[in-house]
């Protein structure tokens, strides 16, 4: 009998690692990704802490290695609709959504994009930039092929006319395929908490109050501003920047009781990046507890303080107010030592918004029959001894879909490899 394959759902760094490890040891992998390209959240980041590696530079080779592997069958723009069976013998229905572009023909040349008359906000840039109705999410996208966003497409047919490869197919239909697999790995990642749920911070009202992921796009060379940090309201270079930590984390009133695990680390990294962009900028981080755990991170925080002069204020600010005359923002906070209410003025305020379960994770959880924890993240069968096993045998999980226990990128990679081990135990060893 042929060795069963493994289904991996979600092609962020964790899913890519799991797929690559399994494929490299000779196990066939179906890697299903909901969006048009693999890469996940890591593709959106500018640099990674504490080594300051350019995120895309270290991710892109992995994306290509994984997608080119002869044992990996990539199913992008696809979703898992039905799962039946038991470990060693699952039957999975996957829906391939119509891209309206034939990926075997599309060369990614971009002529269609140049000619498309419809501009919409770019979700990859967290809504800060624009894209066309026919688009590739980012330059290093895999597969390198366009996708037509039918919701915004006006069906003018220009792309079809201009495409030299004849790749545009406006009649493309949704396809359903059936896969037989022996094990399943879920790696669907996270969403970002919407800070407008905390009205005093004015996110959504004040243009210069942004989330950390939005900042990441503003700092990124391939982002909407070409890597120039300018504030959204007037395009000016901000001179004073504040970070507010625990926005929606450790907050039972508005958000979630848990600690998101990564925000202290990325805020310190972003603060240092801002100082590297503009040494004259003044950067300040409002925090409750500075959770700089993890290899090399305490040392990084020390450098942020001594070398870069980042100011750390221990306080959870109550309100951000806007002054229309100066187009500036004021953060109101209690100095926890003097117990006085103070305020400081800033040009740009960055909210370190919590990481939350993916909004659509409920559908997948139902399809797989697995359980979630009280916050909506996937539940481990034993949080101590079986961290990457879900509550259903033969179905494993890795990455942030398991919740903040995952923490950062190395944790996601480790879990990806660990889930690959568990799946291999089922496929090869029957355990």
């Amino acid at each position, binding site marked *: 009998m042929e060795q069963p394959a493994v289904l991996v759902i979600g092609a962020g760094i964790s899913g890519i690692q799991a797929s690559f490890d399994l494929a490299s040891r000779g196990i066939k992998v179906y890697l299903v990704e909901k969006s048009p390209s693999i890469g996940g959240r890591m593709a959106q980041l500018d640099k990674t802490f504490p080594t300051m590696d350019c995120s895309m530079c*270290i991710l892109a080779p992995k994306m290509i290695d994984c997608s080119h592997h002869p044992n990996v069958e990539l199913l992008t723009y696809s979703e898992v609709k039905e799962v039946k069976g038991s470990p060693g013998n699952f039957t999975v229905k996957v829906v391939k959504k119509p891209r309206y572009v034939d990926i075997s023909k599309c060369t*990614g040349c971009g002529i269609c994009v140049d000619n498309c008359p419809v501009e919409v906000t770019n979700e990859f840039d967290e809504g800060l930039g624009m894209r066309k109705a026919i688009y590739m999410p980012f330059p*290093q996208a895999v597969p390198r092929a366009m996708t037509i966003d039918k919701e915004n497409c006006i069906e003018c047919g220009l792309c079809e006319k201009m495409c030299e490869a004849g790749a545009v197919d406006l009649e493309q239909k949704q396809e359903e395929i059936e896969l037989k697999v022996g094990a399943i790995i879920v790696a669907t990642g996270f969403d970002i908490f919407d800070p407008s749920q905390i009205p005093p911070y004015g996110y959504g009202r004040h243009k210069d109050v942004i989330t950390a992921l939005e900042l990441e796009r503003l700092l990124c060379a391939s982002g909407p501003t070409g890597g120039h940090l300018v504030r959204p309201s007037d395009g000016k270079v901000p001179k004073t920047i504040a970070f507010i930590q625990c926005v929606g984390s450790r907050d039972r009133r508005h958000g979630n009781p*848990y*600690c998101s695990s990564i925000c202290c680390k990325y805020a310190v990294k972003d603060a240092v990046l801002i100082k590297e962009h503009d040494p004259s900028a003044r950067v300040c981080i409002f925090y409750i*507890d*500075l959770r700089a755990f993890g*290899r090399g991170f305490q040392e990084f925080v020390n450098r942020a303080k001594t070398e870069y002069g980042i100011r750390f204020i221990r306080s959870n600010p109550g309100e951000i107010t806007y002054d229309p005359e100066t187009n500036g923002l004021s953060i109101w906070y209690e100095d926890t030592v003097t117990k006085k209410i103070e305020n400081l003025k800033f040009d740009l305020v960055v909210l370190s918004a919590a990481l939350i379960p993916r909004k659509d994770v409920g559908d997948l959880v139902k399809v797989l029959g697995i359980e979630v924890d009280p916050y909506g993240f996937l539940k481990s069968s034993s949080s101590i001894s079986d961290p990457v096993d879900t509550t259903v045998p033969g179905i494993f999980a890795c990455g942030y879909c398991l919740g903040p226990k995952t923490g950062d990128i190395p*944790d996601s990679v480790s879990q990806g490899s660990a889930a690959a081990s568990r799946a291999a135990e089922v496929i090869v060893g029957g355990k």
Partner: protein
Amino acid sequence: MKGEPRVGVFVCHCGVNIGGVVKVPKVVKYTKTLPNVAYAEDNLYTCSEAGIDSIKDAIKKYDLNRVIVASCTPRTHEPLFRAACKEAGLNPYLFEMANIREQCSWVHPKEPEKATEKAKDIVRMAVARATWLEPQTEPEVKIRDSALVIGAGIAGMTAATTLANQGFKVHLIEKEKEIGGYVRRLYKLYPTMEESSEIIEPIIEAVKKHKNIELMTSTTIEEVSGYVGNFNVTATKKDKKIQLEVGTIIVACGGLNYQPPKGLYQYGIYDHVITQLELDQILKEGRLGKPERVVMIQCVGAKKGEIRGYELESFPKSDTAKLLKKILRAKKEEGWPYCSRICCMNAIKNAILIKTASPETDVIILYGDLRVYKEYEDFYSKARDLEVKFIKILEIVTPEVTETPDKKLKVLAYDMLAGKEAEFVADWVALSTPLVPHKDEVILARMLKIPISPDGFLMEAHLKLRPVDTMMDGIYLAGVASGPKDVPETITSAKAAAARAAILMANKKMKSEAIIAVVNEDLCKGCGRCEEVCEYKGIKLEEAEGALIAKVIEAQCKGCGVCAVTCPTGAISMQHFTNKQINVMIKAAIGG
């Protein structure tokens, strides 16, 4: 190589990383004027699928027989571009990389004109070398499908069973008499409060019963030689020598709880100043009773500099040991610089245990930052519900511990919220000390030739993307060997290490680098200097036709080149880095 060299050059903008400084189109225009260049273009990202396809297309379309990518570092990207060449039918060793990012645009961001000129120089040098590149074949290495796991704590045992369950033979070596390691000594584990025995006993049973695991306790490793896929291990059990042949090695040597030196917070002077680990034992044995107050001090010996003494005397006196001594001696004065990750939860766990057994006992935790990350926040809330008191102290003012006349302990600390020094009289003071590297780590690191990171733990191959790999092929890290981890994190990393080791063993073979030393037997005088200087035992003298001749052991040679520069007769050259290739680069650089 048949025919004239036809070099194709791909100059990468790397978004604005290069393109924002270096005028890439100018570099391309210049490149087209260089001898032997048949084609040149620029790419926004040469490493994107578009760039890769472009390389492959150009090789065919322009009949290229050399390819250069002028972009970033070969360390991350050479394998990718080599693979692209290979897919297009070109020998991957006919690829050359010119680094115009790390060595140009990143270091000269304020001088775009000069940087552009420098980028041209770098490309010209690469073109000069590329014309002299030759195709190489990578030696194939057989991989034995058995593994050695060093250390039978929870990490080693997990890694061993994970591999054994996949049918691989595992030799699990533990130097202590009993297996189970650090976790076995603990009482309860956070956050579920399961007894550690509930977690560890089933794993111990599985290890002992598994037909694919050969467990050797009271055994120490003496020597490891060989290379990926073919490691030869010498171990001793009592006086008996054991020889093992394995394909991969997983290091799971664990860590130690930092033992404060006598006098630090009066530890070792007053009996009731103890470490959290000792408190754990006292709680396990139910010896704490119902004290009035317990004070816990966080980050003792972590994150800051009050450490005195870390025993180094047992290290062998070699250069490596000397170097490490320096690191460790600096730590001696400054303390362990890192955050040990687990101590906050550990303190809360013990606080909850005390409060549950004796609700009247006042438990105070003095901390700088409370790092109860993840969903452990709930665990923290639970402690507060039980009225455990958390007091944020100013860390630079080290708390003082003294004895009161009635033989209690007095802790003086600077309470940040109160803005003044505060005094707590306690029956017990528990010090939260970090997990620190096992001293065996230094010995193992030297034996296995894997580097130690600045924090003293074994170093992974890449902090972000290769957390369980080492720089040595076939050797992996599991658990605390690579830094502090809690139990679930340790188990995860052990399973991850097993996955990485399984790849090699399942394939039964791998290709190794063709960048190795080559001996010109006519020039070799058999002096043996090369054998003396080789760190990897990759070259040795052999008798041939009555004379001694140096011979390279291909799979063991790392291509470092030390033998080549040592050889007095110039008999050794480096494949893929020949003198000719380097000389033409120098000439191209200085315009000779």
